[in-house]
């Protein structure tokens, strides 16, 4: 639990330091900043998926989740490049894959949405409850 608290503390790490340090940290953000932003994106996406009724919005939220993941991959790729670890291209390659998959998914998903709308004349997910029993 203390680890979790310290992770949350990253956001306020730089604020306690000098202004230059803060500027520097904005110019050259370290890994934690990316991860925090990725997490925020992910949570926004999740919340959108779970709460919105419009299926288009849900799609967009899903894109947010995917992009949160992409951001993480990129951030770690850079981090690995900086620290001189394993092959930094792996993360980038994964990101490209995810973008392709997201594009395909968007195409199919929007097709489904159109078909759905033609059948049900609605895109509100709370009206689409045929999956029960």
């Amino acid at each position, binding site marked *: 639990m203390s680890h*979790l608290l310290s992770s949350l503390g990253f956001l306020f790490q730089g604020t306690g330091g000098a202004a230059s340090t803060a500027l520097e940290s904005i110019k050259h953000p370290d890994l934690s900043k990316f991860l925090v932003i990725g997490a925020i994106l992910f949570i926004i996406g*999740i919340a959108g*998926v*779970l709460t919105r009724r419009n299926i288009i919005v849900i799609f967009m939220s899903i894109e947010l989740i995917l992009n949160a993941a992409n951001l993480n991959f990129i951030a770690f790729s850079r981090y690995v490049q900086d620290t001189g670890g394993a092959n930094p291209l792996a993360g980038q390659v994964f990101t490209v894959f995810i973008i392709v998959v997201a594009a395909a998914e968007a195409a199919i998903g929007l097709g489904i949405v159109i078909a759905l709308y033609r059948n049900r004349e609605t895109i509100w997910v709370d009206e*689409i*409850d*045929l*999956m*029960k*029993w």
Partner: protein
Amino acid sequence: MYRYIWLVPLLPLVGAAINGIFGRWFRFPEKLVGGIAVGTVALAFLISLTAVYSYGFGDNQQWPRPYVTTQAAFTWIPGGAMAQTLGYSQPGTAAGSLLNIEWSYQLDPLSAIFMLVVTGVGLCIFVFATGYMHGETGFYRFFAYMGLFMFSMLVLVMGSNFVMMFVGWEGVGLCSYLLIGYYFNRDEAANASRKAFITNRIGDFGFILAIFGVIATFGTAQYTEVISRAGGYPVESLGTWGLMSWIALGLMIGACGKSAQFPLHVWLPDAMAGPTPVSALIHAATMVTAGLYMLTRTNVIFQHSQTMMLVVALVGAFTAIFAATIGITQNDIKKVLAYSTVSQLGFMFLACGVGAFVIGIFHVMTHAFFKALMFLGAGSVIHGMHHEQDMRKMGNLRKYMPITYLTFLAGWLAICGIIPFSGFWSKDEILWNAASTTHIPLGWLVWLVGTIAATCTAFYMTRLMAMTFWGKEKFGKAHKHAAGHEVHEDHDTHGKHAHTPHESPKSMWIPLVVLAILATVGGFVGVSTAFTGGKYVGGKMNIVTWLSPVIWRPHAEVRFGVLEGTQSPPTSETEPAAEQAENHDTGFNLAHTVESRVGSETATEWVFIIISLIVAGIGIGLGLLFYLKSPNLADVWATRLRPLYLASYNKYWIDEFFGLTVTRRTMDLARGVFTFDSEVVDGAVNGTAWTTRLSSQITGLTDKYFVDGLVNTIANFVVRLMSPIVRAAQTGFTQNYALMMVIGLLVAVAFYLIKAF
């Protein structure tokens, strides 16, 4: 040669087996079937002839000769140590002796005579049957049964112990059943065969009890040993019932059944439903004399029981007169001959009963000749008349069937007792022995009854001759099948009745001629001593000499009664017989009374010979008067003596009496038992089944409604209780499921984090 006597029964059996097994498969032609049957019997006859010759007349034989037995071919029934449960122990019958029943054949004077009669007369009848049965369906079957019968009969007379005799006894009974029922598609024949079989069963029951008695008493079933041991027992006087009397009673019941003595005679007249050669062979010449064979074989036992001797004599005498009076009124030619056979068998029993076993066997022999002859003659007549058996539709057949007529004439004279035909010698000897007997009381009564029966015999035989061969032709008339007359049209192969009778073929009249010769001269082996000056001539050719080793002779001190010179006063006739026997007195003796008048025994015998000739003449004369000279006399007298006539015509209602008292009652009993079975036994079974079914229904219903109901109720309850909860989780909203995934994810992460710290 007598070592090969085992072939004698075997040969007919082989012939029967070949005919019976292959005759149908390979569709043997009649000539082949007949050839096999006749050939085997002829061979058996030749072997018997040579065996008997070498036994009796072989070189330097002493006489009487010990019995020859084939070395026990095998121990048939190996027994264990046995205890004699009856009788007393004798020397030579050590306790714990083994009872082994052998299968071996015995050759002695008695079985020799029977072997020759059975195979010899049998051969004639077989030859006759090949002609008579020509064209019948089942020709092979007939000869298979006949061969089987020959085998059984030969086992009966040649076996060396009681058990073998019983085997033959049952075997001939079976063959009799099969052959009476030969025309099994006719009700009459089928019923007659059953009647014969069942009636014989009653006799067999007595016989087998007697065999048990013999084994329990003597510890063996071999004749030779039984005879030697039985000789040591005391003679049981009249009115007492000792061991010997009981055994003799059982044997007598068996003999009554097989030899058709009153009251078990009812099957024999009905047995005429079989083919005529069967009637000749089985129901006249051989099988029915098996009772006589047994009586003579066991004469030692009978002679030890004065009571049974008297019973045998009285039964024989009663049967003789009883059947003879029935024979007077019968219209079916074979029925007349059947009652004649019963009557003649009664004469033989009479002879045995008065102690003249030899004469009984002599009469068996002569009777076999002349009765087989007459039956075959009747068969020839029936054949010539196209299966007509009613004598009222015959007449003047001598013109059409001369050979049958001449041979029948010999038989007629023989049975009437005309000198010198064979029947005279034996019947006269029987009556003489009855009159002069010292074995039993009431000899005079037996003689009187026998003499009357002989008169009746002459009368009805003359009637038969007159109606069949003499008088007017009556077959030309239109056939009217009157009520009460048996209809025999089924197996008539000649199509519509051609009304002219014809002589029979050669295969049928040659046996007739042979038997006619035998019936004429066959009596000379037993010429009465009156003709020869009081001694038995001819040596071993004389039947009395020949058979004497078989007959048990009591020692002088054992012999009861005073032989000579005793005449009771006439008043003693009315005294009870038992008291007389206690006084060692056989009562009024007719012969002795006469002898005291005429002086010598030979003269006395002559008196009786003349009496029997006179009564035969009376019978013949009356027959001629009634049925030839003035045929309406018969009807007149039938009306005049209507009750007697009806009684005789209806066979004294014996069949009806038995039907009412025995058959109906047995069937009632059977019905009662059936009712008990169907109601009580089946009821119990069905009740059990019903109860089981009821209980299973209850169990089933319990299971269905109670157990299943409980389970269903609980299940329903659970379903109804739980399903809203479970169902509520399934909202159908995608987001709910996504939320679950997220929650799950969070839980997983949380779990991971908690675990990490």
